[in-house]
């Protein structure tokens, strides 16, 4: 019987900036149908880890495997085309475009003709049916259908976070790396986002970086705790919660903090 392979695997992943190891020999596995949450104090290296996995940063050492292929050193666009999508902690949208145009452009990334192909210069982007359908699906999943004509920069913070997700979904990835999708959201918006993430879990391998502890324990199938670039615990959420090391280093302080509201 062949061993089931994780969709995304990182082994001994390390990133150094000068003498400082922002991410130090980290192992991560993402399985389809599971949410793998990563938590830790600020500066723990969570965002750096996400950047390493998405190709935004080249690793100093270690390996990353996507669907069996070694992707260390690949450009972000190549990784994205191999169906890894990520969303950003700091909203990274096209502020001057409408909500619809944001998602449409994201969906277009899957069908774009070569930029040197004159056919791509003369067709009407707005009339690309397959693209429109994909964008429509993504925008509905994110619950933004009624806001499609709003200029992205003028939308509320919560809507922008939804748009952030919608754009990632429009590229129809199988692996999702979500960096603090709940950041700055009000209670109702956060609840809706949690429901969305549970829906997405079915068909994706997901990594979730978050500070909102309630959401984490509602969503996570696996929990990794990072402190100072290193993994200090990686297990089922209940076991991690009970780990005295984790409680001392992180959960203890965090229990008295307010979670994830603007």
């Amino acid at each position, binding site marked *: 019987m062949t061993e089931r392979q994780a969709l995304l695997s990182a082994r001994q992943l390390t990133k150094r900036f000068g003498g400082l190891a922002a991410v130090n020999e980290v192992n991560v596995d993402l399985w389809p149908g599971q949410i793998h949450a990563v938590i830790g104090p600020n500066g723990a290296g969570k965002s750096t880890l996400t950047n390493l996995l*998405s190709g935004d940063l080249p690793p100093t050492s270690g390996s990353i495997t996507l669907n069996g292929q070694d992707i260390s050193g690949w450009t972000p666009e190549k990784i994205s085309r191999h169906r890894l999508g990520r969303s950003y902690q700091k909203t990274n949208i096209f502020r001057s475009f409408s909500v619809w*145009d944001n998602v449409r452009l994201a969906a*277009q*990334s899957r069908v*774009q003709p070569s*930029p040197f192909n004159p056919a791509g*210069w003369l*067709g009407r982007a707005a009339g690309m049916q397959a693209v429109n359908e994909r964008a429509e699906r993504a925008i509905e999943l994110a619950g933004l259908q009624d806001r499609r004509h709003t200029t992205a920069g003028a939308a509320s913070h919560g809507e922008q976070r939804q748009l952030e997700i919608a754009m990632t979904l429009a590229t129809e990835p199988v692996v999702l790396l979500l960096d603090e999708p709940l950041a700055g959201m009000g209670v109702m918006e956060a609840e809706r986002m949690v429901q969305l993430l549970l829906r997405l879990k079915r068909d994706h391998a997901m990594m979730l970086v978050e500070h909102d502890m309630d959401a984490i324990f509602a969503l996570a199938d696996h929990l990794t705790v990072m402190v100072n670039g290193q993994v200090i615990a990686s297990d089922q959420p209940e076991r991690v919660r009970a780990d005295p090391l984790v409680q001392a280093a992180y959960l203890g302080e965090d229990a008295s903090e307010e979670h994830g509201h603007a």
Partner: protein
Amino acid sequence: MSAPQIHIETLPRSIQLVLLLGLIALAAFPFVGSDFYMGMVNRMMILAIFAMSLDLLQGVTGLVSLGHAAYFGIAGYALAFATPANEAISLYAGLPLAVGASALAALVIGFLVVRTQGIYFIMVTMAFAQMVFYVFFDNKALGGSDGLFLNFRPDAIVFDLENKRVFYFFTLGCLVAVYLFLRRVLWSPFGRALAGIRVNEHRMRALGFGTFSHKLAAFTLAGALAGLAGFLWAAQTGFVNPELMGFHMSAHAIMMVILGGMGNFAGAILGAFSFEMLLHVFKDLPTVGEFNMGKHWQMWMGLFIVALIVLAPRGILGLIQKALSHKETGHD
């Protein structure tokens, strides 16, 4: 790099009307204007094509090139070299040759420069254009600082380009064709991707777009269109010299695009005509007392540019849009 400017892509009705009226005026001009002024307007139309080509790069894609004139000049020189001393070259050979030469140069140089970001891009485009300038300036075989003459305009067979009026309408036709083509590109998948690159290149890459090849394609297409303008310039004036590829020419192109308003090609046309007319106004200034104001036109031009950047950074169309939105809603 810097705060993205909000570009006008969809033209308000009033601007569309102005464009239409402008087209009618341009078409009527040869029948009311003298030969001299017709030649002047002809040159303005050619510069408008040049400005539009830069707008694709700068206004749509957000790549500020300080060396765009290189592709303007290369096409002119290509035509000059290809035109024999004692007969015309066929338009159907000369035009593709000239435009192709510019496109090739843009492809090669683009491959080297498009990998750079922000201020580096500005500097290296300028540097490579200067290199092209010096290649022609320093080599007698290529005409040197004196430049080259063309003895004949290209032969179009079915119409006579040596006839000034025919050439004028040929240029007008090219102007309209390029405008319609670029408006089409703006709303094409390619155009939308370029706009995305301008607004947020980082996210475009994260979404899976090959931004390098998109930028290179834009650079090459812009170079090819600049080449069309250069071809027309050489054909009209019958003369090419290294200044056509120089730093000043490149900077003029940027100013024309800025003056009109970037990102929609109408602004580029507006800016080209306005800039040229302004230049003529400054150069024709009278002598006040002992001070020859016209001779020092560069001073007025320079002050105008400084004032433009300080007061109206989004150009004429930006001012118009501001005025229109003030009327509609009472605030910007």
